């Protein structure tokens, strides 16, 4: 068997060398091996060769698109693990532009995942907050102890009863009303009626400049 192969290769080699010695313009790709005739399997019409070629390239390209989409999703998934983690975000501070809050309006800001109520109080409301008899309150606290600047009321929007978010400009005391169990808070965020035990909590905050409030 080995001898038969070597004879074939020698013969074909000999043929190629002979052909090369005869002419210098012999096409180098023309096979000199015996091969069967496949013409009755081939695509007969000459015109559709571009179409079939395009189809093949399109199929390969689509596979590439799916692979690239998978790779992109994987990379994005890994990159998001490197972004700020929840504990870093939890220690973050929040800045609020105060000139965006008109007089007599509430604004809710998300800080460390909690809602913070900011109210731009009118002078009437400040007076109302100061006029309350503190000794009659469930959680006695003067308004001046709760705010740094009476014009701006900043407090955590979490009901001290069981943690729902009270609704602003609602309730019997011109303040906030918690819809879960009916706690009423007044214009200084102090508990007046309902099951909550304490006033709405005041977070750490400061006025970086007269127009900017930094919570946290």
């Amino acid at each position, binding site marked *: 068997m080995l001898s038969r192969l070597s004879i074939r290769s020698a013969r074909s080699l000999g043929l190629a060398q002979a052909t090369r010695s005869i002419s210098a313009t012999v096409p180098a790709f023309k096979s000199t091996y015996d091969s069967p005739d496949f013409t009755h399997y081939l695509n007969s019409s000459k*015109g*559709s060769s*571009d179409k079939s070629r*395009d189809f093949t*390239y399109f199929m390969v*390209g689509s596979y590439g698109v799916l692979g690239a*989409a998978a790779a992109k999703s994987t990379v994005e998934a890994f990159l998001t693990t490197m972004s700020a983690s929840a504990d870093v975000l939890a220690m973050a501070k929040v800045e609020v532009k105060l000139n965006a809050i008109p007089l007599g309006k509430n604004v809710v800001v998300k800080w460390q995942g909690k809602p913070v109520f900011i109210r731009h109080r009118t002078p009437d409301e400040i007076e109302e907050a100061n006029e309350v008899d503190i000794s009659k309150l469930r959680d006695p606290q003067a308004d001046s102890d709760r705010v740094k600047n009476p014009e701006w009321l900043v407090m955590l929007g979490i009901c001290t009863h069981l943690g729902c978010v009270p609704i602003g400009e609602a309730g019997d005391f011109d303040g906030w009303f918690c819809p879960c*169990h*009916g706690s009423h808070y007044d214009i200084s965020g102090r508990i007046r009626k309902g099951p909550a035990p304490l006033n709405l909590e005041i977070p750490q905050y400061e006025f970086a400049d007269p127009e900017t409030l930094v919570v946290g």
Partner: protein
Amino acid sequence: MAFYSSVFNIVFKRNSTFVASIFAATFLLQVGLDEGVTRWYENRNKGKLWADLKPKVLAGFETEEAEDDE
């Protein structure tokens, strides 16, 4: 036929253009598929999403003052 050969010559012939077209198609596919599936899902669940319920809930708070649900 001229269309197929022109497509080949413009897009598929050089590997640089082929790969560039693959990346462009990937971006379009991801954005388009995300948007399309989101829209189909929200359409299928119409009336049950918070965006649909929010105005009704807020209207309910406007009319009622105190709720006693103990």
